[in-house]
């Protein structure tokens, strides 16, 4: 095989462009998934059947179908009767929506994981409802929620190159375009290694966080 460092050198400016786009998609996608997941989780706890049931059905459907096909759906189908979005925007919405169905489960488990005795103890101390949430339930739930949420951010990072398939210029998109123009493959290898290099310290960080929080 021939490995040409010159090719790598030529790719570098575009690589950094791609890194920026990937991180941007990851950051906004994360925000969407964290916020939307909370909405799903609360809706699934709703006392109203006509809220609980459709939300459960929709989140189950989204979680059990491929993100790639959802991206195609958002990019090619939604504009038929809704807004037309750029590839990057579509990708970010797709990532955020897909992962919100996972974070919803994390929130749900986090809230349900607080032992019933804690609610009872708060009642016994006649804490108000908002005080119970703020002082008792949420601090315990957050400890359970942060590590798995972090893991999903890493998972989202690894799924983010899918947005290249609808034409976004993230790391993979840049590498693909560069490779096609130059008939080389070094760029793909660079991007592959870059994912590991970003993901590994991130998961180390989450594990450290987990050890601190989960007692």
């Amino acid at each position: 095989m021939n490995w040409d460092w010159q090719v790598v050198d030529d790719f570098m400016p575009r690589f950094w462009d791609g890194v920026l786009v990937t991180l941007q998609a990851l950051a906004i996608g994360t925000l969407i998934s964290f916020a939307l997941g909370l909405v799903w989780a609360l809706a699934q706890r709703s006392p109203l059947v006509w809220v609980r049931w459709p939300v459960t059905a929709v989140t189950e459907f989204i979680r059990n179908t491929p993100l790639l096909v959802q991206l195609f759906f958002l990019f090619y189908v939604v504009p038929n009767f809704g807004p037309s979005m750029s590839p990057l925007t579509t990708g970010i919405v797709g990532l955020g929506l897909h992962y919100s169905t996972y974070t919803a489960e994390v929130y749900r488990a986090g809230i349900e994981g607080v032992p019933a005795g804690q609610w009872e103890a708060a009642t016994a101390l006649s804490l108000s409802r908002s005080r119970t949430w703020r002082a008792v339930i949420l601090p315990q739930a957050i400890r359970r929620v942060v590590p798995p949420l972090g893991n999903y951010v890493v998972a989202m990072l690894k799924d983010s190159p899918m947005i290249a398939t609808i034409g976004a210029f993230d790391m993979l998109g840049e590498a693909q375009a560069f490779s096609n123009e130059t008939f080389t493959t070094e760029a793909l290898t660079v991007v592959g290694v870059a994912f590991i290099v970003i993901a590994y310290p991130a998961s180390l960080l989450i594990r450290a966080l987990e050890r601190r929080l989960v007692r």
Partner: protein
Amino acid sequence: MMSSEFFTTWFLPGIWVTIQVTVYAAALGAVVAFGIGLARASQYWIVRFLAGVYFEIFRGTSALVLMFWMFFALPLFGWQLAPMWAGVSALGLTYGAYGSEVVRGSLAAVSPAQKEAGIALNFTRWQRLRLIELPQAWPEMVPPFNNLLIELMKGTALVSVITVADMTFAGNLLRLGTNETTPVYTLLLVLYFVLAFLITRGMRVLERKAKAGIGQQPEKRGGITAKTGARGESLQAGAPSAGGVR
């Protein structure tokens, strides 16, 4: 609308290819999961270390990038893989890495007293693993394996990007040919959901059998997938997390 001719020439074979890729990648993934999972519990530090390196690398790898790399870059190293096998390898190697964490965690969760009972009966290390630890860990592995299998099945859609004619590939062809995007992608999503549903049903049966094999009742669980730990990533704390494990 979709012509019946197109349906039989592209879509039906596409479904079959998706199923094939899922089965082959799952088989490879299972081999990797048990191989690496057992190696990570080895008594030799060098084996544990190498298996740990594998785990960390493939946990940090994006399946799609790996697939691209195997398809485009690997041939330059003198290894030409047919597109389908590039896809199967990429999926099997990455999901196998997640699976190894399930195997390692479930084995670690077997009570140490069981190991001691095995020593007291003078079993060798391998006999203990085969007769005591694996059979007891197995029912604990099935629910997280179900989640991973669904993730892997969803991941098979990626092979369409490297020209494997699975059902997503057929859908994209149809879009190019007809511009009938709405029915095509809706049908596609529904088909994947049906596959996920069938996998979950199948794994439930497997779980019930596995639990019956150690004299336990399976517990009730809602939803098509187990509720938490829906991805391998959240399993790293050692023992499988809340998702239907005692």
